[in-house]
């Protein structure tokens, strides 16, 4: 055995030993049981649905919407083409490309309705069934869209404001992580309708330490704040850190959830969350297109089908938790 070979064998052995010793006795992937909803598959002809959202890449919220859409697609024998572009004209262009591809249905978010209107109307008039979800509750009816699945952000905001009022909160900080997003503004405005002592703060959602520092500074500046209301789950978790840093008595509440947030509600660091059931939005959008194609059914009777607001708090978190762990709530 040459010296070199012996050395490399030794190194390999050491590495193996290190790896064995380096195993974590808790946590990690092994804890996760894969629990996919295994419903049967429809025997209707294969159809193609373009699912076009305004999501920024890597957003946990949109991941849930997509999972709902994928599950529905699997069950309904649908080929799902998921695409997204946070930029209004870019998203409109994706609708155009779906028309060009002659898909059998389009599910689209209308967060920037003015940019989307021309192409969505064109698709509907051209005989492609279109449903809207998540954003654009005030705009979808004029575009020939069959139905809308989502939450009225203003109503959700008002509900949150009411809850804050009944809890006896004094002052709320409303954290907006995307400047210029009408949905998030509507939420905070809704909160203000029913809970007037609400102040907005703007943070950059793609910069977590920045979010934390901004919330911290606001808590330091205004000691009267006793509720921090974030517009997304990851930001609520950052806010928890800020509250801890400032040893402020403020409590953290939020819109939207993910797995970690559900755990935080269970652990008591976050009080409650307004849930708009993103999984359901994605699922219903695809499923309703399939229903329309197969039976000519429509949902909602010309009105929006509301998937929220529902509250998750310490009272019902145990029930929600198992679904959240599967990435469905």
């Amino acid at each position: 055995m040459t010296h070199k070979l012996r050395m490399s064998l030794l190194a390999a052995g050491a590495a193996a030993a290190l790896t064995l010793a380096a195993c974590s006795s808790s946590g990690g992937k092994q804890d996760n049981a894969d629990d996919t909803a295994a419903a049967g598959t429809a025997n209707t002809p294969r159809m193609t649905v373009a699912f076009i959202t305004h999501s920024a890449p890597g957003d946990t919220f949109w991941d849930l919407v997509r999972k709902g859409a994928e599950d529905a697609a699997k069950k309904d024998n649908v080929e799902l083409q998921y695409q997204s572009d946070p930029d209004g004209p870019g998203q409109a262009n994706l609708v155009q490309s779906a028309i060009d591809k002659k898909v059998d249905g389009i599910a689209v978010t209308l967060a920037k309705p003015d940019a989307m209107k021309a192409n969505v109307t064109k698709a509907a008039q051209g005989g492609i069934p279109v449903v809207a979800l998540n954003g654009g509750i005030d705009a979808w009816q004029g575009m020939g869209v069959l139905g809308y699945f989502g939450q009225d952000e203003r109503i959700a905001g008002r509900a949150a404001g009411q809850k804050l009022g009944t809890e006896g909160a004094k002052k709320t900080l409303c954290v907006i992580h995307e400047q210029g997003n009408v949905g998030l503004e509507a939420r905070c405005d809704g909160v203000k309708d029913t809970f007037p002592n609400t102040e907005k703060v703007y943070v950059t959602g793609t910069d977590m330490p920045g979010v934390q520092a901004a919330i911290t500074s606001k808590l330091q500046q205004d000691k009267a704040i006793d509720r921090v209301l974030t517009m997304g789950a990851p930001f609520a978790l950052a806010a928890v850190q800020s509250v801890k840093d400032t040893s402020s008595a403020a409590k953290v509440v939020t819109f939207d959830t993910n797995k970690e947030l559900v755990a935080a509600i269970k652990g008591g660091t976050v009080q409650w969350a307004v849930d708009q059931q993103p999984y359901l939005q994605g699922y219903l959008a695809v499923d309703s297109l399939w229903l329309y194609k197969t039976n000519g059914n429509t949902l909602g009777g010309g009105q929006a089908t509301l998937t929220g607001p529902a509250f998750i708090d310490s009272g019902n978190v145990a029930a929600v938790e198992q679904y959240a762990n599967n990435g469905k709530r």
Partner: protein
Amino acid sequence: MSTATDVAAARDDRVASRPLAARVLSRPEVGSLVAAIVIFLLFMLVAAPFRNVANVGTILYGASTIGIMAVPVALLMIGGEFDLSAGVAVTTAGLSGSLLAWNFGLNVWIGVLLSLVLAVAIGAFNGWLLLRTGLPSFLVTLGTFFILQGVNLGVTRLATGNVASADISDMDGFASAHAVFGSAVTIGPVNLKITVLYWLVLTALGAYVLLRTRIGNWIFAVGGDAAAARAVGVPVRSTKVGLFMAVGFCAWLSGMHLLFQFNTVQSGEGVGKEFIFIIAAVIGGCLLTGGYGSVVGASIGALIFGMTQLGINYAGWNPDWFRTFLGVMLLLATIVNLYVKRRADLR
């Protein structure tokens, strides 16, 4: 007949000592220092919470998360190159550490070390590709920027089925790693995050290497004129690759903070931060063309950023104008910088 005055006149003016004021004013970081003081005084006047000593920790934390990256980015810029992948590389480092540990059920520290190897390797790859192809670093790292952005999303989804890394706070080694990368100490009324310490150490180290060592001379030389530097025997290739690896190392440090501060990492994070690092370096006196700049200046640039970002919050100004205000601040800082430097050079 020679007199004392003749001797003085005959002395080589290249080595003559200039007045102290001129020497100080011609330092690259002076402009940013002036700007920092002006911004500091401004917010001291208008924002009451800014005057509260207890809040210094928050401002320093905001500055430190930028500063940790601004230091190596400044060194790289002095060495004549850009790294547009620096922002998403931070996310890549955080994600890889978390995913490796989580996916294979390893001790968190193994994930941390593997992530270090990966982050430095990405830096080395950037440098290698740059030298290999001769393309401008702007293009090469723009490529890496997009590649990493996609990899961050794609690999995270492959491993976890989600777009954020799983929570690893229940795994072995998390507590100690959190202490190293995400802890905080309270000194009197001030809560100081450990990133502030890393930032100061990196600044001191970077400034020492740049100004007091042979490597520092090499960095100035390769940024000023790579061909001339090579001609006088400067190892241009290793200097540049080393600089990229330094960026990788600091990206790892930032990524570890991201991971252990928040327990999970969102895979879409970090986009756009690369420009913040570059801007901090430029405010601090780095030239976009290379060969000139300062590490201390870059750190002051990061401080200016931190003060402005949080000062607007503290002052309670209408946040609609935040970006505009930031832009004006940056322009002013750079102009002051330029003006001070010109005046100093005239003397």
